[in-house]
């Protein structure tokens, strides 16, 4: 039994984008909060600038968790062959496990989804074999919380440029990041073919904001921590706010084993292993899961009870299905003028012309220029396929072309498949003895068609901007997830086809909520973090007001 000291109003599992916001909102609303994070609180120095071990290139490891040892997953390929993989290896679909989660090391693009993104099924119809559905809430429902995220976490952008969205009630708190050399070239190219471009909104301070400095435009943004702490995540905004109330206790390096219920199946708390490996039970009136789309689904599935023998919230076999992420079709171009001026983060310019209304395909996506590319990533991923892989020609090309090469790419809205899924593996356990995530299936083939369409648009933009040579691989069918993982516990009014209701509450439970991208019905043609933050503001506010 949990001792008196282990009793809270709310337990939040996971201190990333969703959990961090929930902690801040609920602690400030007067609730006693326990925030449990399996990773550590990482300093700038601990995250470091290792070009071979980071969230962008995890060749030999990574820099923001989870630990390489003791955290396996199982990946099942198209022929049903399962293999056990480690967190930095392909197929794991890792997202950072540390205080702040992905927001500690992300590129910080701060996109709102569009109104149509909440109504994909009614806009396009449901292709055969897809679980495409509308959200139970609309853009208008979420709009005030987008605004809160933009102001309370901190976004730099230009409201007037966001012509693909209904007009904003309030501008962004900070002006856009200054355009750099590649951005100028791409804006000129888009303009030549009549495409509207806009500055990419970023969760990065461009002026001093919230007591922290402005961005110095360094070259190590995405995949790393910020040297001036100008990159806004939950670790430097909502979590410190939660702690400052004196009502939020946070424990790190603590792994939640299961959701605890009473004899009637009512959620009463969680059991977790602390950093010494001691199993501890904590009790609360409300439990909020914010562990990310793979780990939240895993926790529900690993919490079977007599009342819900298939896992909590899984009576209708919905938990873990519809895993989505983003395809990123992209085209690389060699230009006759320099594209690199060294000014980070790098991404400044996007178009939303192709998010919707494309002939013959479902949805679409945003296209944008690229973050500064580390030299080893450039060598591994961006060289033309006809270039020798080694020798004098390879070296000369690197020397002559690094500053003249640039790419356009963007996230394509996934068309969900119920077979793209997270289950738990019947054999493999993690270092605590907990059954691990098993990933299987692929996205729906319609996603690949849309991605192929967007790949052509990327090529069109690169060529219009003056590239003398272009290359890049067309998209192929695969499982999508990764850092943009979403959809495994989607929202809906019908418990037979969804896991949570429109407020993020798990069907059949009155005190179990999910506040992360698991609840996304669809994942937009945009980086999803602002939607995760906004939904968490909305869910947490609902919880605070409900008792």
């Amino acid at each position, binding site marked *: 039994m949990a001792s008196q000291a282990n009793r809270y109003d709310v337990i939040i599992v996971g201190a990333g984008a969703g959990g961090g916001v929930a902690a801040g909102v609920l602690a400030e609303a007067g609730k006693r909060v326990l925030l449990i994070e399996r990773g550590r609180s990482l300093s700038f120095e601990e995250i470091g600038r290792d070009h*071979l071990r980071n969230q962008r290139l995890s060749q030999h490891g990574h820099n923001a968790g989870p630990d390489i040892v003791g955290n396996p997953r199982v990946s099942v390929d198209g022929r049903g062959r399962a293999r056990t993989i480690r967190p930095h290896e392909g197929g794991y679909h890792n997202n950072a496990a540390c205080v702040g989660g992905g927001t500690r090391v992300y590129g910080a693009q701060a996109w709102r989804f569009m109104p149509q993104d909440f109504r994909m099924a009614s806009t396009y119809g449901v292709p055969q074999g897809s679980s495409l559905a509308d959200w139970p809430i609309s853009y208008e429902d979420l709009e005030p919380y987008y605004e809160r995220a933009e102001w309370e976490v901190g976004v730099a952008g230009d409201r007037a440029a966001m012509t693909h969205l209904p007009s904003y009630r309030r501008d962004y708190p900070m002006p856009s990041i200054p355009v750099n050399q590649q951005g100028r070239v791409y804006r000129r190219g888009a303009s030549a073919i009549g495409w509207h471009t806009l500055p990419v909104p970023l969760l990065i301070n461009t002026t001093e904001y919230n007591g922290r400095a402005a961005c110095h*435009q360094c070259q190590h943004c995405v995949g790393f921590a910020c040297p001036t702490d100008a990159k806004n995540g939950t670790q430097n905004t909502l979590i410190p706010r939660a702690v400052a109330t004196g009502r939020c206790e946070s424990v790190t390096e603590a792994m939640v084993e299961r959701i605890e219920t009473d004899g009637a199946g009512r959620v009463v708390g969680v059991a977790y292993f602390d950093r010494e490996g001691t199993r501890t039970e904590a009790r609360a009136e409300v439990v909020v899961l914010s562990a990310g789309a793979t780990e939240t689904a895993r926790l529900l599935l690993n919490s079977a009870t007599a009342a819900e023998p298939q896992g909590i919230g899984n009576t209708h076999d919905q938990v873990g299905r519809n895993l989505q992420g983003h395809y990123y079709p992209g085209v690389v171009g060699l230009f006759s003028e320099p594209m690199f001026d060294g000014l980070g983060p790098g991404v400044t310019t996007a178009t939303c012309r192709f998010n919707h209304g494309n002939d013959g395909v479902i949805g679409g996506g945003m296209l944008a220029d690229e973050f500064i590319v580390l*030299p080893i990533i450039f060598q591994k991923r961006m060289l033309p396929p006809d270039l020798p892989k080694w*020798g004098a020609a390879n070296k000369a090309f690197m020397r002559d072309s690094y500053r003249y090469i640039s790419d356009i790419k963007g996230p394509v809205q996934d068309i969900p498949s119920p077979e793209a899924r997270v289950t738990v593996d019947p054999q493999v356990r993690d270092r605590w003895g907990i059954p691990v995530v098993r990933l299987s299936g692929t996205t729906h083939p319609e996603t690949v068609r849309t991605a192929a369409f967007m790949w052509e648009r990327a090529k069109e933009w690169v060529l219009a901007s003056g590239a003398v040579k272009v290359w890049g691989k067309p998209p192929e069918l695969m499982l999508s997830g990764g850092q943009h993982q979403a959809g495994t516990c989607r929202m809906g009014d019908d418990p037979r086809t969804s896991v949570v209701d429109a407020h993020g509450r798990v069907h059949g439970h009155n005190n179990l909520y999910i506040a992360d991208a698991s609840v996304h019905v669809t994942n937009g043609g945009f980086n999803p973090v602002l939607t995760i933050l906004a939904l968490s503001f909305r869910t947490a506010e609902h919880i605070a007001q409900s008792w």
Partner: protein
Amino acid sequence: MLTAQQTEVLQAAINRIIPPDESPGGWDAGAGDYLLRQLDRGGDLSHFAEFYAKGLDALNDEARTESWAAFATMDDAAQDALLARVEADEVTAKWPVEPSVFFRRLVEHTMEGFYGDPGNGGNRDAVSWQMIGFEVRG
């Protein structure tokens, strides 16, 4: 770790993967230092140590089979031609590891040592970054 002869073969191969020209070659830039450090006990490539030892010996055998010379003593053009055949699995010596897989890994790890951050033990004084124009400010 590697024998003196294996290290000689490694040095010669790294200097053909990234040849010296107006800027340093792979070996002088520390790509080999990176590789030896990672292959050593505790390094991230330590599980490849035996694979490398076998592959380097086989590369030398290939040179001797073909031209009765140690790989390191062949001229640049001959080394390049031999490596191209190894890359294509067109070998005559008996290889205990798959030639193309060995060479692909050697190229991959050499590039990591040359273009990765100096903190990984290669890319001495960020020489490759200066060469391509990757600047670190702030």
